[in-house]
């Protein structure tokens, strides 16, 4: 059966969303659930596999019976070697066409034909080429470990927000890194329209199908890593809203003045029988706005299913990569720059709260979790500090440094000192922090006992960098 690909652009609250439906897809790229295995954490955890062609790329253990709120344990399997010429060519052609100025739907047509049946949205977005936890993504998944931000439902999801995934999972092992490829990419990244092609996998993480060397070059050259992103739309959602109450107030001159105040009343399900629509991480589309045939495809297909060559893929899972530890070494400055990039905690916090005023920060510094009768971030003080730090680090570095120093300088907030010190360690070049930590080291005050080790390390690193 030939692949049927249709694309359409719809308008959702003023935002243009590109939809692409695939019917009879070749199942060359996708994910599937393998079930439980006593070896991989017992019957209480599920294993998922991301595959490209007949090769397993990433193994994901989903704890708690595949609970969507649990982060996954991930590790790279064999990775995509490019043996399947059809897929290799499709990726190369799509990448070239996108950089020649083709539209996303036209440029990625070859890749869409390789996907499982379903409806996808495609857009461009800047990615941080890290694993979301401070490590450069290529080579960051060699051993099985829990990757924060891979839960399908996280704080951003839970509050009904849409968010753009921004961290990467490689589809090639680091063995494929070469200095020559890196140098070639370094010459071209400045002139590229699109740096990579990503396929959303879970939570904040997408698999990078094309553009691995480009990602290294972008970090070195300090060029935003702009990717064409493919996301599957399949999760049902039900819209909840907090009703806005209109309140009439008497103004000073006695005239009636209508004022609209946002009041946070218990969310209610709006008058809509059944679900409101279907969503992916970055878009929420009401049922009424879907083209009919695309809606039919979503309803009558599965979120994920096993490809026809499932047995071939699983047979390769037992094989160990020829070079589990690669000799390839990424440039040191690239690795260092990756540590400075936003991590999952920061991005989650940025989506979880809309803003923090100076007055609210002062309240937090005074040990209060409420401002003007409203909870600032969370009723839990420690959670409030954590979220506030992450949010500020993502949005306003200067305020983040000031806030962090104020916390660490306050002995009454000692419970949060260690966490805050950990967060600021990535700001190795910040002179204000250096001054503060130097004074901590020199003072020898007991109120700094929880951060003294961090202070020593920070001062040493700063001094080293200064000498360089």
């Amino acid at each position, binding site marked *: 059966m030939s692949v049927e690909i249709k694309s359409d652009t719809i308008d959702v609250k003023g935002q243009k969303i590109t939809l692409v439906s695939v019917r009879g897809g070749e199942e060359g790229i996708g994910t599937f659930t393998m079930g*439980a295995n006593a070896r991989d954490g017992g019957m209480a955890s599920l294993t998922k596999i991301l595959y490209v062609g007949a090769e397993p790329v990433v193994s994901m253990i989903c704890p708690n019976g595949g609970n969507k709120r649990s982060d996954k344990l991930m590790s790279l399997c064999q990775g995509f070697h490019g043996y399947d010429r059809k897929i290799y060519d499709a990726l190369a052609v799509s990448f070239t066409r996108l950089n020649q100025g083709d539209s996303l739907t036209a440029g990625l047509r070859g890749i869409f034909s390789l996907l499982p049946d379903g409806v996808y949205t495609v857009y461009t977005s800047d990615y941080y080429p890290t694993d979301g936890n401070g490590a450069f993504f290529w080579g960051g998944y060699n051993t099985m470990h829990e990757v924060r931000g891979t839960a399908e439902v996280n704080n951003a999801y839970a509050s009904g927000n849409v968010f753009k995934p921004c961290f990467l999972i490689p589809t090639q092992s680091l063995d494929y890194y070469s200095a020559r490829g890196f140098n070639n990419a370094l010459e071209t990244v400045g002139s590229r329209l699109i740096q990579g092609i990503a396929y959303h996998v879970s939570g904040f993480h997408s698999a990078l199908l094309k553009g691995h060397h480009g990602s290294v070059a972008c970090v070195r050259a300090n060029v935003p890593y702009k990717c064409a992103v493919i996301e599957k739309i399949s999760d049902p959602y039900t819209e909840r809203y907090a009703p806005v109450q209109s309140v009439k107030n008497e103004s000073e001159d006695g005239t009636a003045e209508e004022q609209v105040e946002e009041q946070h009343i218990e969310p209610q399900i709006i008058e809509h029988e059944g679900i409101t629509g279907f969503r992916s991480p970055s878009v929420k589309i009401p049922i009424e706005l879907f083209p009919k045939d695309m809606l039919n495809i979503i309803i009558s297909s599965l979120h994920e299913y096993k490809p026809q060559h499932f047995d071939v893929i699983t047979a390769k899972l037992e094989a160990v990569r020829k070079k589990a530890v690669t000799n390839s070494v990424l440039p040191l400055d690239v690795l260092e720059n990756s540590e400075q990039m936003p991590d999952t905690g920061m991005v989650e916090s940025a989506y979880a709260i809309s803003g923090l005023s100076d007055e609210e920060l002062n309240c937090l510094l005074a040990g209060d979790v409420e401002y003007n009768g409203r909870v600032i971030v969370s009723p839990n003080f420690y959670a409030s500090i954590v979220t506030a730090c992450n949010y500020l680090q993502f949005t306003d570095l200067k305020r983040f440094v000031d806030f962090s120093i104020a916390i660490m300088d306050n002995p009454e907030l000692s419970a949060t000192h260690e966490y805050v010190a950990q967060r600021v360690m990535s700001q190795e070049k910040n002179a204000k922090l250096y001054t503060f930590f130097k004074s901590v080291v020199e003072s020898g005050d007991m109120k700094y006992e929880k951060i003294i080790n961090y202070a020593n390390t920070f001062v040493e690193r700063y001094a080293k960098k200064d000498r360089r």
Partner: protein
Amino acid sequence: MAFCDLRPVRASDDKTGATYIIGDVFAVYNLGSPFPVVYSWDMVKTVAITRKDMTFSFVGAKKNYCITNKMFNSVDDLLRAIALIECRQKTYGFDYQHEKRLLPMKSLYHECYSMKDTYVGEGVLDEAETAAALIVLLDFKLVKFLWLVAILVTLVVFGVLNYAIGMTRENILYFILISIASGGILALIVYIATHAFARARVKSFSDSDIASKENITFVVSREGFAVCESCVYQNRDLVAWAEADYFVESDKMFIIFKGKLPLAYIPKKAFPKKHIGGVGDIISLSLEQK
């Protein structure tokens, strides 16, 4: 989740023109309506499945949806729909009402990808064989009870005769014979009644479970077992041994029990003869035999 690759099932109501799709979501295409009404499984309040139909009720829905068996294109589709519902019930925990089942519920299964020492068989679950196996089990349990009944009745009848007529040297032999005969007859009546009850029970299970007439796949593995309609089974779904308590072996089948109720019937004839020993070994290693 087990049976996660089951394709969505479609059912059409010719009278109203409505079309239902049961899959990752439950969708209703009403005639004349431009868009379907779609419910996610977390909105399901109750699903009730009877011999003739299945009824869905949803949170916030204006009406319940009743899909009769005839609306499905085939029995395979109906069985797939039931499997989908039972798997979702495990995940979302909605109220699920159903008739008696001869096969294990799909909510007991989990997907398993390392199936070691697996024996797979196929066949139809024979009603007479199943009843016979249950009767063997009943005989085993009844034997002491029947002896007790026979002895008690014998003594009671002997006592009653002595009280009513009075024992003499001439009639004592008759009294003994009559008493023993009464005990034996009553024990026989109890025996026949329980056998009839066992047969009726299997028949009622069989009648209420549509799957009992279908081709069944039997799987016995170190990780678990499966007794599932062949049109639904996906080769990787098993009921863990921990879900069962013990098993009983008759000459024709293994019966796996959970508590006092049979969980699965595994006929020996479903497997090649050379495999029956291996099947028995795995079951006896995994469960206690009674």
